């Protein structure tokens, strides 16, 4: 992929007194249990990864897994105890307060689980807030905020107070606010967790539509595995502060790295997650039937077509070159077979 925007090298976050000293003594081998005995709680344990420009990395984990802490280290809302974090090549932890503020004002936007709107400001004032903090004059910031109001579909409600809006609408304001300064990097901390399921789905679709248009670099935190599968380019699964696996949704479903990850993938309907490319046979490109499917098709969408074939179905890439093949039996195998042996 293209250039790296966020880069983490062995990031640790340990809460408690003497955390720094204990981390140094441990030589990077942090064991949560021994630390806890000494009064320290391990939030993030040796996290290393990169996020490329325009990529959406979803960090998935249950509550207490350290996913929000990791995000707060990268946005430097808390200072990491150890390791290095680079934002567009800049060492985040080396920045002084002024540079950090500059970075946040121009490069970062963040959406919060509880919306975190300012209760005394109206919708449009909330959205204009980061701009006014930056020093943009009232007229420009309000105009820009009105554009954002339209973008998230809240026209007509710009003069409402947050308390007068529903949860979904409040989060739209939160999203609009985080986008007002046109940041390159977009942090979302469980943005849809506080919403009810129907609204959540609607907001997810809306979010994908926005991302299509804006192509931001995104770190998205969630505890909902389905949400992660639906949105992510890549997923990082966290447990007890450790990233258990970081891979594409398909790879996580097909090859869970640990027992913990496998438990999540068990109930996932594969045909909705996997694309043809994930299950095709690249070695056999002969004896193909008439039907060709694209390697990027989601299995669910083409399963019926393939299953009605008797021959092997060819798989083509976007230039219509044959890159592999798939037997109808493989589809059945994927949909029903995988769950028994857990692979």
């Amino acid at each position, binding site marked *: 992929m293209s250039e790296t925007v966020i880069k983490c090298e062995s990031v640790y976050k340990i809460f408690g007194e003497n955390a720094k000293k204990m981390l140094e003594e441990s030589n990077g081998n942090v064991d949560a249990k021994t630390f806890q005995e000494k009064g320290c709680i391990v939030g993030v344990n040796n996290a290393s990864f990169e996020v490329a420009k325009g990529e959406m990395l979803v960090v998935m984990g249950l509550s207490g897994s350290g996913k929000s802490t990791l995000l707060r280290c990268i946005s430097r809302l808390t200072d990491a105890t150890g390791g290095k974090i680079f934002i567009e090549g800049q060492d985040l932890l080396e920045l002084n307060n002024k540079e950090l503020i500059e970075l946040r004002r121009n490069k970062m*936007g*963040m959406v919060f689980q509880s919306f975190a709107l*300012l*209760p*005394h400001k109206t919708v*449009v004032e909330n959205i204009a807030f*980061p701009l006014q903090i930056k020093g943009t004059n009232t007229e420009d910031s309000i105009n820009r905020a009105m554009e954002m109001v339209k973008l998230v579909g809240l026209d007509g409600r710009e003069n409402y107070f947050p308390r007068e809006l529903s949860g979904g609408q409040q989060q739209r304001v939160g999203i609009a*606010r985080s986008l007002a300064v046109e940041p390159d990097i977009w*942090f979302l901390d469980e943005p849809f967790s506080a919403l009810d399921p129907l609204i959540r789905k609607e907001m997810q679709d809306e979010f994908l539509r926005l991302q299509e248009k804006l192509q931001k670099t995104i770190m998205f935190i969630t505890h909902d595995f389905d949400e992660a599968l639906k949105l992510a380019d890549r997923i990082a699964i966290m447990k007890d502060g450790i990233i258990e696996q970081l891979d594409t949704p398909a790879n996580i479903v097909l090859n869970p790295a640990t027992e913990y990850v496998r438990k999540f993938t068990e109930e996932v309907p594969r045909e909705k997650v996997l694309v043809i490319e994930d299950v095709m046979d690249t070695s056999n490109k002969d004896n193909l039937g008439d039907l060709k499917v694209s390697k990027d098709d989601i299995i669910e969408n083409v399963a019926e077509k393939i299953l009605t074939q008797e021959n092997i179905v060819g798989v083509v890439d976007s230039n219509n070159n044959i890159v592999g093949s798939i037997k109808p039996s493989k589809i059945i195998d994927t949909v029903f077979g995988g769950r028994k042996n857990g692979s």
Partner: protein
Amino acid sequence: MEYLKKYPKLFQWLFLLIVFFALCFAIDVPETYKFIRGQAEFVKDPNQSVYFFLGKEVRYYAFDVFWRLPPLLGWLPIWINDSLFFLMNEWMPMEFWNEDTQEFKTRPLLLQVSRNLTAFMTFLIELIREILLGGLETIVAFTSWDFIDAYPWLELPGLPWTIVAAGAAILSYKLSGKGLAVFAGLTMIYISIFGQWKPSMQTLSFILVAAPLSFIFGLGLGIAAYKSKRVEKALYPILLVMQTMPQYAVLVPALVLFGVGDHAAVIITMVVAVPPMILLTILGLRAIPPEVIEAGRMSGCTNWQLMLKVLIPTARRDILIGVNQVIMVCFSMAVISAFIGAKGLGFNLLLALNQLNIGLALEAGLCISLIAILLDKMSLAWANKQTDYFGNLTFFQRNKNVIFFAASFLIGIILAYVGTFIFKGSFNYLFEIPHNKGISTADFWNKGVDWIFDTFFVYIKAFNTWLIQDVLQPMRALYLRMPAVATLVLAVGAGYLIGGIRSALVVAALTLFIALSPWWDRALVTLYMATFGVVISCLIGFTVGTLCFQNKKSAAFMLGVCDIFQTFPSFVYLIPVMMLFGITDTSVLIAVIVYATIPATRYTIEGLRSVPVGLHEAATMSGVNKFQRLTKIEFPLAFPHMMLGLNQTIVFALFMVIIGAFIGTEDLGQYILKALSDKNGAGIGLTLGICVAFIGLIFDNLIRTWVGKRKKHLGID
């Protein structure tokens, strides 16, 4: 045995009471003991014992230690006096430039600081006062008396009342709307035509200096405490004591430090008004969801921006309650500081009190209430003001308030000028209505009270005699009969049963301080009056509150009534009761009951309101009737909140008992009052104030601990 297991607490309490009464009976009243009248205490008497501490002589009547502890803290007031004197007159002498004599002069640092502070406050008050009422001090402050003699036209003429009234209405309209504008206008017109203009403006100028300063200091210190644990720890005990300290106990030390006058009043007001502001600021800032702070940080706020644009506005609900408190305290201090020579409505009120003129007191009191409510509503509206970004306004629309004010300014001046022709030779009513030339309803009220007195004299007298002879005197005697040791055991035991060792230690320390002070007997008298007042207040308050709660409208109405009664200067309550019941404990207690019923009622209604709706529905679905619902569900759940009301009731009652000294009581308040006119009163006043504060704190500690536990038990927070 089974009962013992089932209700262990009950038996612990019973045991405590048994020990207490056993001690009471076991310790006899010493034969030499008598309740000493105030005057006799300062007379040297061969029967007195003497001890020396830090070179100071402390005289006292010695009794059996079990009966009354010796006043081992008797040196404290003397020591405070000496320290104050030393600080003011001898500590850190430095060279200061003297403007008048044009030379350096040696002065102690604190004296110089106090003088400068005084000058600064005086300047601020005079500035506002002269804008409102006219004068020349402000101009003189910038120039000199010679300059004014040369250019006498520079003297500020003061604003005609019509302009101030119009200005207040227009400002209210801009902040809130028509309703407040009408209220503001009517308030100003009332003040003017009832001839209260000058004292009201004097009081207002005092408030307009004291309130913003208290707000700024309170907010600043609150923020500092929020940011630093160390600052909070240092502030917390002071805040606690100040909350229950009777306000005019602070007057005496301030007299020593800052002298007499409006400036001293402002400083004292700040001392009293800042603590609640600090507490509420901390409370508000603590309650901000952490994500809101993070949202502010992620928007790229600097620390200042975060504080001003995110934290303070988000915490504004509590901060506004703080502002409300500041305004209320300012007005109550505006009255009390009349004792140290502040001008304004308080002075008139004090005068009316001395003349037993209920009518005048009512009118002046109403002015104070009205201005207090107006300022409170205006500050609230200001904080909630919204900006309209989208209205495409014309020049006139945008500036209409300024234009209207300019117009009314012109009209006011023209009217005042015309007035000089109409009212030739007499007072210009269009400029200012003098104090005794306004309308007055005083006669009506005075006659009303007189009529009540004449008509019901027999009954009042009979009631009064019965109450004093059959209830109050025996009760007072019982309280005084409590041996010091028994009281200590009771207090510490209660502390232990409610809050464990920690509470027991706190209560023990507070009680010991009072027991070791020279005023234990007086504290018992204070306690007896407060107890009586609190019991009756709670009975009335809880009943009225519960009845009013049955209907939404009556509940809202009652809360409104509470508001008005609370802003009403507490002195005013003393006058009618004094006229009816004379100089007796009855008068004080009735005033206490009227005043202390306010929080009891308010907290009952609010407590009942706070019961979750879901529970109401659940109860209704289980088929309870109204009475069952009240006793089985609403009372138990509202009880913790109602207990906080009890806490407030105690504070209010103590406050009024102390104020009751003006009627003539024999409790701690009487000594504070005496200290006011004593040149060595600072130490005594402060120590007495601390004693009263500690009585309040003992109950405060016990109730709060109990409420905290109960709330945890019920799972409500």
